[in-house]
């Protein structure tokens, strides 16, 4: 989409520069630091420990930590550290993909519904209501059940449900903003509908959408790992953390690390996202809007 006007726009009532955009509170900083740690794990992990996360070697199964295998090996002799690092890539990449696609569907939908109003708006919102009536979990089960369990099917069902809340939030903000005088003034000055949308309405959406997205990333990560744990998401040998927990279930008694480490990874990433969301919310005080 358009990168430049989003931040440099001179739209009233808030004028922001890119650095003032990020909160300086403790919540946001600790969340960001924690998340950065996992990004580092995903990017630098494979460089630090050059083991292949998929190579099976039955002679090296369930080894304790050593120099070659910093966290030991799993039940198929695969390096646990390499798998955790690859799992960070999968988790972060996939959840980012979900959030971006959901925002790319929801924001234009809400913008168009909110600015056009009338019958088009009514029909668009009816579509939103229809989608939201289907429980997310049931849809995920149905899609996995009929189309076969796979990560892409899981992502599809999450996207089908999640875009709704973005469309709703965007529409409600647009409805509130479009009555304000600066938008009216822009119309009076002869600005066309699309420019008003881009230059005046879009910047208003930044803060609520960011908070919503930060909250959703945590939820999406939990959902993906849950379904993978049940065998309905990422399929072996993909080293997704939930799938790793499922794979290692029979070996927990002898090697607790197989159970503890992927779980800790999930919990920490989710906590990081929640902290980030809380920090952003405190900074922008979204609730009071």
């Amino acid at each position, binding site marked *: 989409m358009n990168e430049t006007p989003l931040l440099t726009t001179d739209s009233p009532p808030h004028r922001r520069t890119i650095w003032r955009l990020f909160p300086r509170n403790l919540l946001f900083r600790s969340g960001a630091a924690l998340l950065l740690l996992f990004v580092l794990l995903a990017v630098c992990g494979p460089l630090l420990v050059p083991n292949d996360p998929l190579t099976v070697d039955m002679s090296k199964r369930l080894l304790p930590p050593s120099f070659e295998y910093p966290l030991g090996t799993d039940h198929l002799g695969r390096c646990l550290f390499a798998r955790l690092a690859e799992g960070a890539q999968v988790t972060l990449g996939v959840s980012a993909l979900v959030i971006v696609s959901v925002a790319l569907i929801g924001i234009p939908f809400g913008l168009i519904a909110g600015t056009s109003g009338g019958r088009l708006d009514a029909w668009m919102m009816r579509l939103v209501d*229809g989608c939201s*009536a*289907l*429980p*997310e*979990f*049931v*849809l995920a*089960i*149905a*899609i*996995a*059940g*009929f*189309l*076969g*369990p796979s990560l892409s099917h899981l992502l599809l069902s999450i996207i089908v449900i999640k875009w709704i809340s973005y469309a709703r939030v965007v529409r409600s903000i647009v409805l509130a903003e479009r009555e304000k005088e600066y938008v009216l003034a822009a119309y009076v000055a002869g600005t066309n509908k699309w420019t008003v949308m881009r230059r005046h309405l879009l910047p208003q959406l930044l803060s609520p959408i960011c908070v919503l997205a930060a909250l959703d990333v*945590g939820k999406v990560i*939990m959902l993906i*790992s*849950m379904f993978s*744990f*049940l*065998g*309905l998401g990422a399929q072996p040998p993909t080293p997704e953390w*939930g799938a790793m*927990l499922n794979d290692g*279930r029979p070996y*927990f*008694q002898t090697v*607790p690390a197989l*159970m503890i480490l992927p*779980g800790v990874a*999930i*919990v920490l990433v*989710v*906590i990081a996202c*929640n902290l980030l969301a809380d920090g952003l919310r405190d900074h922008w005080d979204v609730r009071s809007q």
Partner: protein
Amino acid sequence: MWRFLRKRLLQLALVLFLLSVVTFGLMKLAPGDPVLQLLRIDQVVVTQAEEAALRNQLGFDRPLLAQFGDWLLGIVQLDLGTSLLQKRPVWDVLIDRLPTTLLLAAGGLLVTLLLAVPLAFLAARYPGRWPDHLSRLLALVGSSIPSFWMGLLLMYLFAYQLNWLPTMGQGGLSHLILPSLTLGLSMAALYARLLRAGLLESLSQEYIRAARARGLAERRILTKHALRGALLPVITVFGMSTGHVLAGTVVVESLFGWPGLGSMAIEAILQRDFPVIQGYVLLTGTTIVLINMLVDLSYGWLDPRIRYGKGGLS
């Protein structure tokens, strides 16, 4: 009120219809030919004629809309087809499994109540003091720990290390403890925070000041007067989280080998037993939709200020 009810019922019918369309559509989109699959399960060599006969018998050679009509008519009469693997009506399979899941859900709910209610009352009675901080910490941790991992940890601690409780299957009360705990803990933190926020909110209302002015004991005010106002958000979230509870039962059942609806669904998905999956999807979808409607209707009873119809909710 009646206008509101009628409108809600119409909405309900629409949503249920949508649910059936999605289920039917997904079933038709499913890869693989269901007729061939059905024949393959019996592992016999079949001729073209036999295949065509079965196709005709199942109605798969008719137009899609007619198939949908037939299918919908069957669903309305609770005819959900026959399980490919168990060779019995799906409805019977569901009914067999339902009580086990309900027992688990009740256990989880009990754990949630036992933890959340005292915690919320303590936190609301002493806001900003240690019970409040404790409940906040628990809420942060509780909302970040996935239930399946919590279950694994509990299983590891109480079953493997301490050897107090059984890990798997169904039996006496001891088999119910760990699954209920897993299910209940994940919800307790959320409800404790909600109930606390609701209690504090209603404590700041005029009618509480009036009750205090009448000299009622603080305990009585909290449990009797503030609670009713505080229940509204809790009930709302309870209704909205039916889906989460159901997802929770799937996780817990699969984790602890609990023979309920959830583990049945997982087995059916992994073995591609379509009629059972379809039955589960329709049953749980309908349940969630119905509960949401009941929650909507309960608002008026909980908060007399909400009136349906004129000017109120509609």
